[in-house]
């Protein structure tokens, strides 16, 4: 029997994997993808809680999260394209103009 904790543990592991990706990858595109993975883990948490606590509001909020994530990815990738045209690289270690 699958309980709420199975889904929450799976979502927590996906979130941790996304966090590892954001922290340790140097390719800007892959960082954005790991960010999407974190948002998807949160979506899974919301849907699982919506089901097990009997409220539909979790799923409504998931729709809003998807909208925000899509908008953020569009703008993030546009920034990545602009940075690549400007600096010739998307290695985040090389994009250090504002570094202390």
């Amino acid at each position, binding site marked *: 029997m699958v309980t709420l904790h199975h889904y929450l543990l799976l979502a927590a*592991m996906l979130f941790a*994997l996304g966090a590892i990706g954001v922290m340790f990858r140097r*390719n800007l595109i892959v960082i954005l993808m790991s960010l999407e993975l974190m948002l998807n883990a949160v979506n899974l948490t919301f849907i699982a809680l919506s089901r097990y606590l009997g409220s*539909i509001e979790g799923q409504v909020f998931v729709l809003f999260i998807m909208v925000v994530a*899509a908008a953020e990815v569009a703008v993030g990738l546009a920034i990545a394209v602009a940075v690549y045209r400007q600096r010739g690289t998307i290695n985040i270690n090389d994009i250090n103009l504002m570094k202390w």
Partner: protein
Amino acid sequence: METFLFYVLGVVTLVSAICVVFLRRPIHNVLFMILTMIGLAGLFVLLHAEFVAMVQLVVYAGAVMVLFLFVIMLLNLERLRLPEDVQGLRRWFGILVAVGMALLVFPVLRVVLPAGPAKAMSAADLTNTDLIARELFTTYLLPFEITSVLLLAAIIGAVVLARKRSKQTEQG
């Protein structure tokens, strides 16, 4: 049956997510991300959220990941050779921290949240789309309208940020 499906979909999603984070070539990352999205959509269906599962497939796997593919092709990233990522002790420390984060959340939630099975859906229940629509267009109407403004802002922002500069505007 539900347990079997959960474990199959869960393993597929988890393995794909590991591949997304740890593979070297961006194209491989995108393809495994699409597989992760499909696995998650399956899990949503298992949780009786069919509408959200379809939206996930259309929006995430269908649009966002295709956008990633476009950008990777546009920037011709396959030819870039990026230097090695974080190595050695720092990497293992980071993995330890992330695993600790994941395992820390679980016992906290276990205390707070109920552990039993979900209540069964009766035949008289409204469809998932119906239930979502009732909330979305009455209680949450204002956030719904605000998201359309947000999307407009994102479209304009993306177009402005990514357009090519012509010689005239460079000197202007």
